């Protein structure tokens, strides 16, 4: 049989190429371009090879920011995942309480990120903010603009407030997809509440929880807006997470080369962690 050649197929493929090129490939290549060169004014460039990458990877400043970033992500995952599952378990499964809970849970997710930052900034101010003032009134010496520990506490609390709902909603969806017969079967066996959770609910929620952890990992690892508005990375560099440090370097100091190299390293870390985590979680899953 003769193959008929039909060039019309290009009309379907080209728009996708153009779209992807403009929103992903070209900006990324610009960054790659910067990362290997020294940039002067008037579009003068000088080839630098891998110098910026070496510089970033060896710099103490990057190590510190990465350390803070990992600590932050680790802490919020450790709080948000169990807390989210816990809240989802206590939410009603039917009746008038369901829509109320769901709306209340979605509220924090609907608020723009910079508003969340501003809200918590005011909320936590030691002199006029409700949280800051109350903590001081009951005897804590709380000032998030001056004490690193307080800044961390406020940032973590803000992130937990903002994002636990996402874990709750995903877990709730996962829990609701478990057929009632599983619970009855466990009841007939005489399984304890803990055993029911450990051997029925948790395995049945595995996929949504994997998704929840991935989403929370990515978002928290790239967090920028909220701490920028809340603490601006301070006091000192106490809450200068990777993206805040990156913006400082790129726009504050206008070190485009090192900033571009840092962006790429940052990007690869996120990609690598997601890939490793997802592969591990899905290793034993049967494709269905």
């Amino acid at each position, binding site marked *: 049989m003769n193959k008929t050649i039909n060039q019309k197929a290009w009309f379907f493929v080209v728009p996708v190429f153009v779209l992807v090129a403009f929103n992903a490939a070209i900006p990324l290549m610009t960054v790659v371009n910067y990362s290997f060169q020294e940039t002067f004014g008037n579009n003068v460039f000088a080839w630098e090879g891998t110098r910026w990458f070496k510089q970033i990877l060896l710099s103490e400043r990057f190590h510190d920011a990465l350390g803070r970033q990992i600590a932050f992500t680790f802490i919020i995952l450790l709080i948000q995942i169990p807390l989210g599952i816990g809240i989802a378990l206590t939410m009603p499964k039917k009746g008038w309480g369901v829509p109320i809970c769901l709306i209340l849970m979605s509220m924090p997710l609907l608020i723009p990120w910079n508003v969340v930052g501003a809200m918590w900034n005011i909320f936590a101010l030691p002199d006029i903010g409700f949280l800051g003032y109350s903590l001081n009134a009951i005897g804590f010496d709380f000032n998030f603009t001056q004490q690193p520990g307080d800044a961390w506490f406020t940032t973590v609390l803000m992130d937990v407030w903002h994002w636990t709902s996402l874990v709750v909603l995903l877990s709730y969806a996962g829990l609701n997809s478990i*057929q009632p*017969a*599983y619970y*009855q*079967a466990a*009841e*007939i*066996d*005489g*399984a304890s509440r803990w055993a029911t959770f450990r*051997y*029925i609910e*948790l*395995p*049945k929620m595995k996929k949504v929880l994997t998704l929840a952890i991935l989403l929370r990992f990515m978002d928290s690892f790239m967090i920028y807006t909220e701490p920028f508005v809340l603490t601006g990375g301070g006091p000192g560099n106490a809450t200068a997470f990777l993206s805040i440090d990156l913006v400082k370097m790129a726009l504050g100091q206008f070190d485009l080369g090192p900033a571009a190299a840092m962006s790429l390293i940052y990007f690869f870390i996120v990609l690598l962690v997601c890939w490793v985590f997802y592969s591990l979680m899905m290793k*034993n*899953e*049967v494709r*269905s």
Partner: protein
Amino acid sequence: MSLELKNVEKKVGIETHIHPTNIKLEKNTINVLLGSTLAGKTTLMQIMAGLDKPTSGEIWFNGDNVTGKQVQKRNVSMVYQQFINYPSFTVYENIASPLKIIGVNSDEIKERVGKVAELLKLSAMLNKKPDELSGGQQQRTALARALVKDSDLILLDEPLANLDFKLREELREELPKLFEDRECIVVYATTEPSDALMIGGNTATILEGKIIQYGKTLDVYNKPENLTSAKVFSDPPMNIAEISKSGNTCKLTDNSVQWKSNIKIKDGIYKIGIRPHNITTYKEGNNTVEINGKVLISELSGSESLIHFTNGNLNWVSLSNGIQQKNIGENTKLFMNVDEFLYFDENNRLVNHG
């Protein structure tokens, strides 16, 4: 050993799910609850198990009132339509789980699991997880979980409904054998009359939360107390027509069919119920009568032919063996086996058989 429901009623809000029900199940019996979806089979089973409390009435087990006694303390096991196993356990761990919880020692667990696994042909897959098994094997695992415990009461809630045809046939044949030499009461819920006939034992026909009739499966099938019970226990649906009887002669009230009958009932108007397999394209039985029909639909189901036809202003269903090709709209002649007619009086009670 016996399980007795005394005046058990279940209401949810203003809806009555189970009307006051009395039934007594004896030991070493298989009891089929036969009824359509939402007839109340599952509710009844959950009340029997103790997963659900009746609104009023009592449940007696072995002469003890167990109403309100928790399911964990009752030695019950249940198999569901969905294949319910612990997802992260292997087949072995799944079957062993009910024994572990009641604290059986590990040697005995090993022995009992091995025995049940062999009975259900699971020996080769004891180390697999439920996800890696076919639907049939998953349901076998669930059955093994139910059997390993030596329960007094085993409840099977449409256990074959989610299996494909071949696996269903296979497991349906094995099921009665599994319970043969067990000291327990088995309750089996199904929507399919053929399941009840295959399994035998006793059958309760259920409609809209009421037990219509309970007795030996064949008795319920051959001598349904009333038209409702007959309808529940017939698939494809039973043909029902009004007849008039005078002397030895019976005829459909539209005068299209007439036959001789020597049943001993008063002259008058009756209803007859004719199961589809008693209307065939060939003569069957010693005493047949012809009926003319216009074919509406003709379909094959396995090695049987289902022919829907009209006679006068009634629609009829017939079920014949073999492949009987009919064209839509064709006028055809079918034969009804007069000896198998069921006659019902004006109160829809069976008045005679044959």
